Every structure is written in C-alpha cells, then in structure tokens.
C-alpha cells in the first residue's frame, strides 16, 4: 500500500468480545489524525454474543460508501484463525493477511455439527496471499491478559499501513492515556510484541 489518492480498505475480523471494533476505531483515529477522511462500519447486532464480527475501515481523501466490497480489501486482519479464512474473498489477489493463529472453537463445533478447519493458515497461504501468522493470544497472555490481544494485533498492522507505525502507536497510547492511564505501559509492550511478531515471522519465512 502506498499513500495516494486511492482509498485504503482494511477489513478487521474476529468474534464478538475480542475487541475488533475497538481496534478498528483506534486505527481510524490514527488515519484521522493525519487528516484523512475515514468511515468505519460494522454490523454488531447479535455479534456481541460471540458471533462473527467484521469491521470495515476505509480512509483516503474522501470516503463515500463505508462498505468494502469483495475484491477491494487491501489488508485483512484476522483476530481468530478460522475467521480470517471466512473473509478472504474480500481481498484483492495477492493482498496482505495478518492473522492470529489462536482459535476460538464455537459450540456448534464442540457438539460435533461442524468441523474446525485443520490448518487455516496453510489454506490461506495456498490462495496466494501474503500471510503473516502469529499467536497473538499467547503474546497477550504472556503480558497477563487476553484482552491485550487487540493491541498486539494493532502492533502487527503497524508496519503495513500507508503511514508511519508511530502514528498508530500514538493513537493506541493516547486512547489508554485518556481512559485507563495505568494500562499505557502494558499496551506499549503489547503493541511492540505484535510488531516484532510480524517482523520475525517475515524473517523466518
């Protein structure tokens, strides 16, 4: 992605309660801080009961429709492995996928009605996409709270945006500074862990 007149389309997906909507909002705040127009949309109705959540963020000079249509997403950010697989059709060919390999297995799989995909990462790679997979859930738990997962994911995105990573980091920290200042430091760590996870994964690959 490059900064140009083109609108940037980022699709963030996961399940209700993972912080998908908050993460996308912070991403939007970072884009707005640079003077971009931005629209963010999601359908959140019943998703709050651990259902499917997608959040669309479009930013650029001027944004009209808030919806990303299939084939126009530049970046897919998956907070859960199978959810990333569910939304790949939104991507343009060869686009970037940043995904948590952590799994949230729903009751319909537990009671045996459906199967969880064997290896979502491999299936997405096989589609010719530029996949960066890492265990964001484990990184969050390393810092003591699964809810830091969304900051880890934001860190992972930071070097894949048409603006400097520091802008996004400032947006994350500003949000916590204004709401929960005691959490600023741990979120800074979570952000850097996510950033490093993608960098190291890229080196290893």
């Amino acid at each position: 992605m490059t900064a140009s007149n083109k609108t940037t389309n980022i699709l963030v997906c996961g399940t209700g309660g993972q912080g998908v909507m908050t993460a996308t909002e912070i991403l939007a705040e970072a884009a707005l801080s640079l003077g971009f127009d931005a629209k963010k949309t999601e359908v959140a109705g019943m998703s709050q009961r651990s259902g499917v959540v997608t959040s669309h963020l479009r930013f650029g000079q001027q944004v009209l429709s808030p919806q990303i249509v299939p084939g126009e997403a530049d970046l897919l950010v998956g907070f859960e492995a199978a959810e990333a697989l569910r939304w790949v059709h939104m991507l343009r060919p060869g686009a970037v996928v940043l995904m948590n390999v952590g799994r949230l297995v729903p009751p319909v799989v537990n009671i045996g009605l459906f199967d969880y995909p064997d290896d979502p990462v491999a299936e997405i790679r096989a589609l010719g996409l530029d996949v960066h997979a890492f265990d964001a859930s484990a990184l969050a738990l390393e810092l003591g709270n699964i809810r830091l997962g969304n900051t880890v994911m934001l860190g992972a995105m930071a070097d894949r945006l048409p603006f400097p990573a520091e802008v996004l980091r400032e947006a994350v920290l500003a949000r916590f500074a204004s709401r929960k200042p005691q959490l600023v430091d741990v979120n800074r760590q979570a952000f850097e862990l996510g950033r490093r996870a993608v960098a190291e994964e890229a080196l290893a690959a």
Partner: protein
Amino acid sequence: MGAPLPAPAASRLFLSGNEAVARAVWEAGCKVAAAYPGTPSTEILEELAHYPDLYAEWSVNEKVSLEVALGASMMGARAFCAMKHVGLNVASDALMTMTVTGTEGGLVIAVADDVGMSSSQNEQDSRYWGRFAHLPVLEPADAQEAYAMTKAAFELAERHRCPVIVRMTTRICHVKGRVEVGERVAAEPSGFTKDARRWVMVPGNAKPRLPLMFEREAALAAEAETSGLNPLYDGNALSVGFVASGPAFMHVREAFPDAPLLKLGLSCPLPLKKIRALAERVQHLVVVEETEPLVESELKAAGIACHGKDILPRLGELAPDVLRPAIARLLGGEAAAPAHVPAQQVFPRPPTMCVACPHLGVYYTLSQMRNLIISGDIGCYTLGAGHPWNALDTCISMGASMGMALGMDKGRGAADANKKVVAVIGDSTFLHMGMQGLLDITYNRGNVTILLLDNRAVGMTGGQDNPGTGRDLHGEEAQRVDFAKLCEALGVKRERIRVVDPYQLPVLFKALREETKIEEPSVIITDRPCVLIDHYQPTKPYLVVDERCTGCGNCVEVGCPAIHVTRRETEVKASGKEVELSFVRIETSACTGCGLCVQPCAPEAIVHAEPVHPIQFLRKQ
C-alpha cells in the same frame, strides 16, 4: 456520574450515526427524549443520557415513549423519540392520531430500519409510515447528515406543526464518520394551550382536522421541490440517472461518480417535478432505495418511467457490488467483477449464550423435558432455539409468547392433548408488552406455565436498565417492579408463583415438572442477573480432571461456550450398541464458576481449579 462536558461547537468528531443524532437533539434544545432499547437505535438514548439540560428516559415500550414525547410537545417543548423499525409498529396507534392533532413543540422520531437483518425479526421499511400517516420522512446518508437532518427535522416539525420521521438504517446508525458539530440553542417551551378541538380526538373534533392534514402534506410536497435536502448531483454520463436515498445514495456515488443523481433527503412527500425533470434528461432513470419500491411505485403512478426493483434486489443492502452488475445488465453488458480471492467454506458461528449465562440452566432443563411446546419471545433467550438446546419453538414479536401460548392452549386438538404449553419471556420484554398477555391468560383461564427470566437487564441490546432493574437510564436508583407481586396482581394464584435459582437444576426441573402438570396459569421466575452487567460476581472457576472424564457429553448439553470437546471416540457397548463419546476440557480463564456443568457430571470429573486463576471475561466496556 461525572459526565464529561459535550465537545465544543465547531469540533470535528468521529461519530456514529446514533451519536450524531444525539448531539443534534441536544443542540436543538430538545427538552424531553424517550426510547425503548432496540438494535440498531439503542445508542441514541444511551448517548443522550450524557448530555446536560434535557430529560431522557428509558420508557417501558415504544408506544409509551412516543406518547411521552407527544405530551412534551403539547407543552410547547421540543421532544424526541427513538426506536427500531418494529418499535414503530408498537407506537403506531399514537402516531396515526398525532398526525391529525399535529404537534406544538418540534417532535422528531428517529426510526432505525435493520436493512440486511443483522438482529431483527423482519426487514420492514419504515418509510411507509410517512405515507400512511401523511408525515415528512428524512433519510440521512451518513453520520454528518444524520446530525444535520436531525436538526433540520426540528425546524421542519415546527414549521409544519407535525412530527417528522428521520429514517435511519443499520448502515447509518453504526457507521462512524467525521461530523462537524455546532452550538446548542436553548428553547423555552411555549406553554400548554387548552384546546379540546385540537387535542381531544373525538370524531366531531377530528373530522375538521383531516383537511388540515392534507393541506400540510401539499405544503410539504411544494417544499420538497425546492428544499436543500434534495440536491441534484449533476453528471455527464446521461445513459443512466439515479434517484437514491439513505446509504444507497453513497453507494451510487461510489459506483457511478459521473452519473446524474438526485438525492432524496426529504423523501416523503416526493419532489415529483424535480424527478420528472431528471427523467427527461437521461436515457434510463433508476430508483435505488432500500428496501421496498416506494419511490418507484409513486413515480410510476405519476407516469414517470423508471427502473427499480425490476433490476435491483428487494432484500438487503444495495452496496456498490450489487449496483454495478445490475446497471451493466440494464445497459446490455456485463460488469467486470473485481478479481477477488475465492470464498472458502467455514463453519457457521451463530451467536451463543455467554459463559455462565443464567439462561443456560433454563434451556438445559427445557431440553431434557419431553412433550413441551415452548412459546418464545424476543431477547437473548431466543438463542434457546439453537444448539444444543433446541428448546424454543416460536419467536414473533415483543410479548407474543404470552398470547400465542394461550392460543396454543385453546387451539389444541387431539394431536396435542398431552402436550404442555410453556411460555418463555424475559423481564424487560414482559414489562414491554408481555404482561397484558399474562392478564389475558389468567382472565381466560389458560393452561400455560410461564418462565419469566428475570436477569435484571435488557440483555440482547447490551444490558440496559428497565423498571425491573431498579435503575433508570442514568443508572440512578429507581423503583423496582416486584415481579411476583405483579403476576399475582394480574391474576396468577400466589401458590402458582415460584421464584427459583436457575443455577439449581434439580429445583428448576422439579418446579417445571410440577407446574406443567397443574392445569392453570403458573409463573416460574428465575432470579439471577445477566453475567454482562457490572454487578455480576464471578466465583472460582472449574476444570476437568482428564482421567475421570468418561466422555458422556452431559456437560456439553448445557451449552456453555467455556466447555470444549478435546477428542471424540465411538464405544461399542456389550449390547453391541455404538455410543459417541465426547471428552472435554473447560477453558478455565473464561469460566466464572457458575457450577451448571458440574450438576449433570456423574463421574464428578469437574472440580474447582486451584489456585484460582485471574478471571477474565467479557464485559460491556
């Protein structure tokens, strides 16, 4: 609560459509705002609760909220009311006559349609109410417009002395965009004027007012022709011209930036002359409207040739990927769909009940009982229709579980003679529209057992307060309905009302079995709170001792999302019968120790996790 002050005028904020409407209501000097929660409109009143200098309330239902707003308007105060699309069905009795009286202080009704049906029981088009009630309808296309049109709606309402409907959709309510806000202008109520001929709608008074309503409609139609709310975006691609409103306007602009486009901000009554002028300039006129062909039908009735639902879907959203191929086909070609990655098959992930939800015990118990017909209602407990419980047989409208249960009892034939009719309803739904149904059951000697699930919250919309929670919209202490007393007052015998703990499965099972046997109305009230509300107290979590787990799968049938199957096996019994085994683990970091899964576990494989882990579970932020 020390609420922060509203952002100063001229601030550019990043707001959802709902937040933008709330800001505009406050700026317009509105004095009274009322609503019943309903996705996607809920956040409007939640947001308004943080603004100073106005009265805001959760009402018991949408009809009452609209009547509260009308009363305030009669006093000359600006008034506001918000609801989801189906809410206006409930409020329509008041609406259809307040259009005859007209209003005094500006009265604005924001009604949110669920286009695409993310969380509703139907996809009805609220713009019909404008036609039905002869009232103006405004249709914002994004958050900035939701803000601007709400302010314009108050002006319009006072100029024409009638309520104004602002039609939102999910894609307006929940889309965030930049909004430049302005100053609040206080408005002092002009005072109540006694005028029976205006306010007392008996036939003799109402009849002379009907012509006034049609005169008003004609004046509004004239205004629509020149209103700045209906701008023409000119373009030089004259093969297709568009008429569009709401989110569809943005989709058309996105997909066809060079086509002439008339935007309907004030979409009822229609600016027919303006549309006719556009139709004459273009080869094809296409109406892009979500969801019903209202504008299209009116244009055709007026002799203006146009396309609409003949080329566009009748259901769902009209996003650019829907519009592009439809217009290409109209012009005799095929749109090149953007190259995209092929879709992959992934299991469905329907919404589930939360870890430790008190409804889990209720549905586990219902799923274990035979010969029940379970009349359901609207709320989180509607999820009981899903796996693994399959223990809810109907869901129609707010409070309908009561009346339908009575009808099932009275309408049963020999085929259902041995069935027990059970109704399941939540606390807030019961107060919204269910208690009248219970009165009908007792009055007409129905044989129905009612499960009243009192979790002290409007759970599905995010845990709002209601008269059953003992708190108001602002979280401040309010009188709390005593459900047992209320049911008794509605005619249920005192000994037929039981209050049970839904985490005590044997108690719940016994109560249900006994009450369904007795052939008269009975009410079982469950009394444990929603796990998402702030007052919920988690306890020590559990884990599964692997070597004790026999794979019986009983705990899986509780349906708690913290229980995961680790492996499946097929065992052949001595009788030759094959049995499927499911060995499990508990996600201890999610478990809050409710103890439901422990009760059906025969081998006592589920024990407290030691040491106690830090509890992390989902809360509303």
